[in-house]
């Protein structure tokens, strides 16, 4: 197979690159052992432009390989972009790579209907907000791109992340990077932060520093966005803690304090355990536990 010297191709032209990140340790190990086996695709120019094989090129450069097998693709630029997208679809693309596909198609002047079609193929809902989120992700700073890929954020969450100003986004990424966040906990965190920003106009990130996990961040944010609800939650937790309920008696209150009724459940293996649980509940009733809980679920002193 014919090879081309890396110094003979336009390595910095990333017009058709939809791969992110380019560094791939598995591929690097493979190239180190076997060399580049699959030829890269080039557009015929004075200085040929690479269409497919950016990761292979990167691995070769890191390993000091000077020449690569290649094939010339005698196609136009739009076809070249579709070829690059199609070539990469043989593996699962991450969110940033999907964003690159969409953004590059738009930049190349494809009709929105064509872009929507590719979005559907990529498993994305062909909606305006998702398209905008993809463009934001494609243009994002490297810190944001890496975060999106590392946490496998879907574009719906990327949209929320890019609702914030760049400085705020940096703080959010720093904060979330310092603790373990799942997609769902990050979503909740972002929603509370959006709410806080709308309510107060700004977020005081210093208040969130030192939180030891995602739940601590969530609680701290919720205290600021929902002070009354947080107060009810704290009062309930205090009452239940003071009541020292045995593990087989559960008292559940609607987390929104909307339903006035509470659920009490007990687990028993025999009649004696039932009698003991009922006695415990009777004692707690006498001590006013349930009256105090009902005051919380009714939400306000009774009208006189």
């Amino acid at each position, binding site marked *: 197979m014919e090879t081309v010297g890396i110094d003979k191709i336009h390595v910095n032209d990333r017009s058709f690159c939809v791969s992110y990140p380019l560094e791939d340790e598995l591929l690097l190990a493979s190239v180190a052992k076997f060399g580049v086996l699959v030829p890269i695709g080039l557009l015929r120019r004075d200085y040929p432009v690479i269409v497919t094989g950016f990761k292979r090129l990167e691995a070769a450069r890191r390993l000091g390989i000077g020449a690569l097998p290649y094939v010339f693709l005698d196609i136009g630029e739009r076809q070249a972009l579709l070829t690059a997208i199609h070539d990469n679809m043989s593996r699962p693309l991450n969110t940033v790579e999907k964003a690159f596909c969409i953004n590059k198609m738009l930049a190349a002047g494809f009709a929105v209907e064509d872009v929507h079609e590719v979005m559907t193929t990529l498993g994305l809902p062909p909606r305006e907000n998702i398209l905008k989120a993809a463009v934001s992700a494609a243009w994002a700073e490297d810190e944001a791109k890496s975060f999106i890929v590392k946490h496998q954020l879907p574009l719906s969450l990327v949209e929320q992340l890019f*609702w914030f100003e760049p400085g705020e986004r940096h703080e959010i990424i720093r904060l979330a990077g310092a603790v373990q966040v799942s997609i769902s906990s990050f979503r909740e965190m972002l*929603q509370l932060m*959006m*709410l806080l*920003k*709308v*309510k107060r*106009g700004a977020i005081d990130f210093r208040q969130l520093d030192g939180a030891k996990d995602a739940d601590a961040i969530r609680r701290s944010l919720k205290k600021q*966005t*929902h*002070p*009354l*609800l947080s107060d*009810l939650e704290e009062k309930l937790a205090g009452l239940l803690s003071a009541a020292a309920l045995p593990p087989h008696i559960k008292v559940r209150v609607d987390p*929104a*304090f*909307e*339903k*006035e009724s509470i659920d009490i459940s007990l687990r028993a293996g025999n009649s004696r355990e039932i009698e003991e649980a009922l006695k415990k509940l009777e004692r707690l009733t006498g001590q006013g536990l349930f009256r105090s809980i009902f005051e919380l679920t*009714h*939400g*306000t002193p*009774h*009208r006189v």
Partner: protein
Amino acid sequence: MSLPTVRRIESEGSVVRDCPGTRKHICCGYKTIDLIEGCPLSCSYCILRGYLNNPGISVRTDTGAVIEEIDRAIASEETHVLRFGTGELSDSLALDESLRVNGPVARFFGERRKALLELKSKWAALDHLRPSLNPYVVVSFSVAPQRMIDAEEKRTSPVSGRLRALKKAQDWGCFVGLHFDPVIIYEGFEKDYADLIDEIAGTLDLKRVIWVSVGCLRFTPPLMKLFLRESRANLLHGEFIMGEDGKFRYLKTERVRVYRMLYDRLLEKEPGLFVYLCMERADVWDEATGREIETSEDLTTCFDRRIGQFYGGSFAWDSTKRASQGT
């Protein structure tokens, strides 16, 4: 007002429906007549922004068929005085001066004299309807402090204009309604609402206000996303929880506080006012008003009594039927 794209349609299914209400909350048993779907007023909090995916406006033009359907609904009702409204999927008056769809329906109610039509609006243009108005048409306006109208109901009439229109309707012999809905909690809302109630009491004859509804802001999850995206600080100022009906509502303790404040203030102005809560829980009714309204049927019965007070024997209702059912 510039008219948005209006699509005229005929006979696309049923036009008279029960108000959709909301799960686990008490509904007043209203019937909606969907003469127009879509609204040009574009209030920021409007539930239609989450419900209707067609940005245009469609108007039913087959008035005869619509009236027949209303007539059938009235004829089949044996227990309650039916109340109909054209302001569920649109504003009753915003487009009426151009489209003239309410007039024939209003005249029908005046001839039928067995049910009420409520025209519910934020658009104070009533003069064109005067020849069609009659005692069986209740003219209602949603009211809010002018500060909220300026911020969130930008294309609607000012509150003073709405009150003037209501006063005019009273002068013409109509009963009128008021809707404090949605009540929005924002910094200083208590004083603004107190001033608003003073203004209402100074403008209208409260003894001829047939009903007043109060409902706190509530909205679906897609609207929450929209409000966040649009940074709607007024709408998101309060503290929201997810209600049992899957809609965001203010925390119960806050709702009760708001309802008590408005209820007490309104009754202070006119002890005989009939004030009801829109889409609320039985326990909130109890805490806020001290009235035991346990079911939607309880509330509908309250409406029957209220209508009886206002219309008495002039209402063409089969009193023997009501007596036999003990209402």
